[in-house]
């Protein structure tokens, strides 16, 4: 269980996290969503006691992280940077972490096995690790103490499709075992596959905190895209559809029809003798629902992708 109460962080004049109150519950995967720069990483760093909140509190299982004596037994985390020294081997990195919390040495081999890293990969120095191997090593470190709470910051970054599938299955199992699992991502589609619940941030503020199913139900309605070579005939088709109660809008050189089906549009076009070049059902993705939610909260709208990591 992670409890955020009025959590606020200001860097100089910039408010990175703004009065965030949320409860992350055990037994489910919670997706932590928001565009780059929305405050996800800063929130996670405050939960882990790395950044000090300007106001409010972040508690893990009811306790301030900075007061934990053996935190690896309570909370496991993967941060954007995996935190391996470039000259130190992954195995030595894990060994040092384990010793700091009194984790038995054999557990290092166990977690390496869990994330699928062999002895050769674990013997490489930090600078020689690929992004994917680094992510796996980071997750191995998070699992050392077999903690009840896991925070993973953009865990699928840099993973191959195999690795992405593995993360999904793995986080699912961790949640099924009754753990609290918080996964951040700037991609809604990623959460569609993994999360039970989503917490959405925009400009540091809470935008949504709801079960995934609820968010999907709230997304915009499906529509049908229609294109053809004869604008006049297409307009006539549009009028006929509008008369049937569909919402028809111009979409470039074609039409976007909401409140009807591709089948109905096709039948009508046949009936009216309208030539069609395209008839496509468009199901708005969760991505669009997400974009709508965070619209106006994107920090660098239309600019080059920046921020987000520190």
């Amino acid at each position: 269980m992670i409890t955020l109460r009025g959590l606020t962080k200001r860097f100089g004049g910039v408010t990175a996290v703004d009065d965030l109150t949320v409860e992350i519950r055990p037994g489910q995967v919670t997706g932590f969503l928001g565009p780059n720069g929305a405050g996800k990483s800063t929130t996670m760093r405050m939960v882990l006691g790395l950044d000090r909140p300007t106001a409010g509190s972040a508690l893990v299982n009811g306790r301030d992280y900075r007061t934990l004596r053996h935190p690896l037994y309570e909370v496991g985390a993967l941060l954007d940077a995996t935190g391996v020294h470039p000259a130190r081997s992954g195995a030595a990195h894990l060994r040092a972490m384990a010793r700091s919390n009194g984790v038995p040495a054999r557990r290092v081999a166990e977690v390496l096995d869990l994330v699928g890293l062999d002895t050769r990969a674990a013997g490489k120095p930090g600078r020689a690790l690929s992004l994917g191997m680094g992510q796996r090593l980071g997750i191995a470190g998070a699992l050392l103490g077999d903690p009840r709470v896991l925070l993973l910051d953009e865990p699928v970054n840099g993973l191959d499709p195999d690795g992405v599938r593995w993360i999904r299955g793995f986080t699912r199992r961790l949640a099924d075992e009754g753990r609290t699992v918080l996964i951040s991502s700037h991609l809604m589609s990623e959460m569609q596959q993994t999360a039970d619940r989503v917490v959405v941030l925009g400009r540091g503020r809470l935008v949504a905190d709801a079960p995934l199913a609820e968010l999907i139900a709230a997304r915009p309605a499906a529509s049908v895209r229609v294109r053809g070579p004869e604008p006049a005939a297409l307009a006539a088709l549009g009028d006929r559809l509008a008369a049937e109660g569909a919402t028809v809008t111009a979409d470039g050189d074609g039409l976007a029809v909401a409140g009807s089906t591709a089948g109905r549009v096709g039948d009508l076009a046949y009936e009216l003798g309208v030539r069609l070049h395209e008839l496509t059902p468009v199901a708005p993705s969760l991505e669009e629902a997400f974009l709508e939610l965070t619209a106006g909260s994107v920090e660098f709208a239309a600019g080059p992708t920046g921020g987000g990591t520190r």
Partner: protein
Amino acid sequence: MTTSSTLDRSRPASRPAPAGHPLAGAVAAEWTKLWSVRSTWWTLLAALVTMAATAAQLAIYAVNANTDDDPTVNPGVLDVGDVVAGSLELTQFVVIGLGLFAITSEFATGTIRTTLRCTPSRSRVLAAKATVVGAVTFGVGLLLGAVGAGVARPVLGEWGRAPLGATVADVLACAAYLALVGVLALGLAAALRGPVLTLTVLLALLYIVPLSLQEPDITVLTRIADAFPGVAGTHFLAGDTAPYPAAVGLLLLAGWTGAALTLGRWALARRDA
């Protein structure tokens, strides 16, 4: 890829935390970290080479001075311990690197975040680092002292002497001095974060400021200079009785080290990682 093995379901969702004191764990982790990067070994090698070369050089100077026709430059018969103490002036900077990089490398690579996640108490992190840096620099000091004495004795020849008790005491003093200066560097580095800035401030504290104060030969300024860590350390190593006993020099240096650690702890606790 391992997909079959998962966490043990028969166990409750969390292991019981161990009974051991977290400081012991933090010290063990620092120890593991120190020896798992190659640069530590290179630093040790560099310190040994520097010590051997400097001790040999100082011994040659002493012999040359003794065979000079001008009797006023004649230092007479030297204790090897004096050569070893003199050699530290240069060698200490290699050893200081150990204390410095124990934390600046973590700031530079971001591994400080891993360290603080494992050991959230900033005091405990710094105490663990100070323990390891202090113990290692003390041990290195013993080794360097032995090497310095071993090199200087044969070079000095008839102009040197190595009474066992005094030499052992000198080597122990060198080790204590290096340990205190090493931990002083650690504390400063925890506060200042960067290796260059830390080294600059250390140079200023050990040499530049006290030398500038001593230069005009005004009693008040010289007295102030005597309170600086480098000068205090020199008085301690030389076994001086004036301006204060050697033990006071040791205490003064230890005071500076304690102050640097306090400053470092304060900065670590206050700043975001």
